[in-house]
């Protein structure tokens, strides 16, 4: 048989994922690998260098994809642009070279970036709140935005008033730094676009057409902080509900950019949904209805949300089954996949769940045995093989075993 062309391979891999997502039977179980720092470890590149040298990050990702041949590829998107973050002064973030060692994963510094008294401002005009309150707290470069007035006052002859506030030295300085940061960010995006073209030309689709965050986590992660948002469920439930309505609209707007993409996967990074964070009753009141509403809106636009349930969500299985069948992918991590399968069979395709510790310190035989059990469980389909959580560290032979075994044994 003649070798398939990269274009044929690209189409084949896309179709495999689309079929799996739609609960049709693909030719075999697709195999992913949400790897954030891993390709750089694999290529022997320090994470700090990968964040600073966009060409080096691309090169490492090429090495990764050439060797492992996953069905979809993330590329260098997780190597955030360190120089741009430096220029913009992202104070709410630590990365190698700024607060962390060279090979440590970057981390978000949680805080109360919106006070309890500011809920109404956010609800009334989220853009204004983000621009003049939130951004100056997160980015030192944007401090000058705090001394401006709301853009909504621009209307009619209001435009004559706004420039008065733009003439301040602090706003002028912010504009200067934001302009520099934008230029650097664009270089990074250009590198991403270049990589997409290159890897598509090799026959690999890009794993994402968009990213998103559940409404509760939009409020919790970026605005109120974990401590405050969890307490708000009891202290000020009405305000929280009103803010969640707004955040749901932001969720839908954010994810909708993926509409029309050939592989319209929008990865939804779920953070505070587990029983460690809230009761089933709280989940049903504050978390799931808003996320579900957002999911349904994206599905309506032909988008496939990939819900990255980033912890054990066994106790939630019965609550999250009310989504349209064959339209959503649920990513598992540390959840009993047999229970998940029996609860969600015929509703969503499940992705996961190879334990990271096994990929890190187990053997290829361990990995193959685990994958075999998973594939046998999902013998009617509905499975995408993947690591349990984002992969930073693993023995190459273990990850290779996950990829190769799935391709051999996972034929339908």
């Amino acid at each position: 048989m003649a070798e398939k062309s990269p274009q044929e391979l690209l189409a084949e891999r896309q179709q495999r994922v689309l079929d799996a997502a739609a609960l049709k039977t693909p030719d075999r179980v697709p195999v992913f690998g949400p790897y954030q720092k891993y390709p750089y470890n694999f290529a022997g590149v320090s994470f700090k260098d990968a964040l600073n040298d966009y060409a080096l990050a691309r090169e490492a990702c090429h090495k990764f994809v050439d060797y492992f041949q996953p069905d979809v590829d993330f590329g260098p998107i997780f190597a955030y642009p360190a120089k741009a973050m430096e220029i913009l002064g992202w104070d709410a973030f630590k990365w190698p070279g700024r607060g962390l060692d060279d090979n440590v994963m970057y981390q978000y510094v949680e805080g109360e970036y919106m006070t309890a008294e500011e809920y109404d401002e956010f609800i009334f005009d989220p853009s204004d709140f983000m621009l003049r309150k939130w951004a100056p707290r997160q980015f030192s470069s944007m401090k000058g935005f705090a001394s401006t007035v709301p853009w909504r006052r621009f209307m009619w002859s209001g435009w004559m008033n706004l420039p008065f506030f733009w003439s301040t030295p602090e706003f002028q300085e912010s504009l200067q730094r934001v302009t520099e940061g934008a230029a650097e960010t664009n270089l990074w995006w250009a590198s991403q676009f270049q990589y997409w073209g290159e890897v598509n030309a090799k026959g690999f689709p890009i794993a994402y057409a968009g990213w998103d965050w559940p409404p509760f986590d939009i409020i919790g992660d970026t605005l109120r902080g974990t401590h405050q948002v969890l307490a708000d469920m009891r202290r000020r439930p009405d305000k929280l509900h009103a803010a969640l309505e707004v955040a749901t609209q932001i969720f839908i707007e954010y994810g909708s950019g993926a509409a029309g993409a050939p592989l319209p996967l929008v990865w939804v990074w779920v953070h505070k949904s587990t029983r460690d964070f809230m009761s089933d009753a709280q989940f049903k009141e504050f978390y799931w209805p808003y996320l579900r509403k957002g999911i349904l809106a994206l599905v309506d636009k032909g988008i496939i949300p990939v819900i990255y349930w980033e912890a054990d969500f066994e106790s939630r299985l019965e609550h999250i089954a009310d989504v349209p069948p064959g339209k959503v992918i649920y990513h598992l991590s540390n959840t009993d996949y047999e229970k998940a399968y029996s609860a969600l069979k015929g509703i969503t395709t499940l992705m996961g769940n190879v334990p990271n510790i096994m990929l890190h310190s187990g053997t290829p035989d361990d990995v193959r045995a685990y994958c075999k059990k998973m594939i046998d469980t999902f013998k009617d389909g509905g499975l995408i093989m993947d690591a349990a959580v984002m992969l930073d560290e693993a023995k190459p032979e273990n990850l290779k075993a996950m990829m190769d075994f799935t391709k051999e044994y996972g034929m339908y």
Partner: protein
Amino acid sequence: MSNKEELVVLIAEMEEEKALALARSMIEAGESPQDVLDASSKAMAIVGQRFEDKEYFLPELIIAGDMMKEISALVKPLLKTQATQVAPQGVVVIGTVAGDIHDIGKDIVTFMLDVNNFEVHDLGVDVPPAQFIAAIREHNPDIVGLSGFLTMAFEQMKRTVDAIAEAGLRDDVKIMIGGAIMDPEAAAYIGADSYGKDAASAVRLAKSWTGAA
């Protein structure tokens, strides 16, 4: 119901504003600050028990912790001598390992050990092995708890356990690990004595290790 009894109920039922108002009025009326503190501690134990029973979750622990903090700030300056406390069940040194700044899991375990009468020394986040060793020497704990959320925590925990062994302290302490991606296999790799799936199992482990089960 006495004010003291009512305060226990208000805190345990998460009636934050009423509880704090009552605590303040008790102090203003000249009631014993020690009574106010005792009532709060009693309520914390109830909250801890409800957390273990999966009746309460993290939001309730947070609010309880905030109430305790406020009440402590209110009464502690009034306590002339440190209250006589019952001897702790055991001593624990706990921290999130180097390179990792996630604190939620560690904070829950700290809270739960605290309400179960363990003396807990929380070293915070991003704690290098040397700091664990210094804390072991200072506090002479029965148990060391290592927390970590990131996958690289496997290596950092292993390094920390190895460093504790090199310092000649490994046999003096039991080591437990916790974190979303931890499991018994990880504990074995790291060289810890055990892993706790959640805060309740951390408490069970700690009790069994200190003979308090």
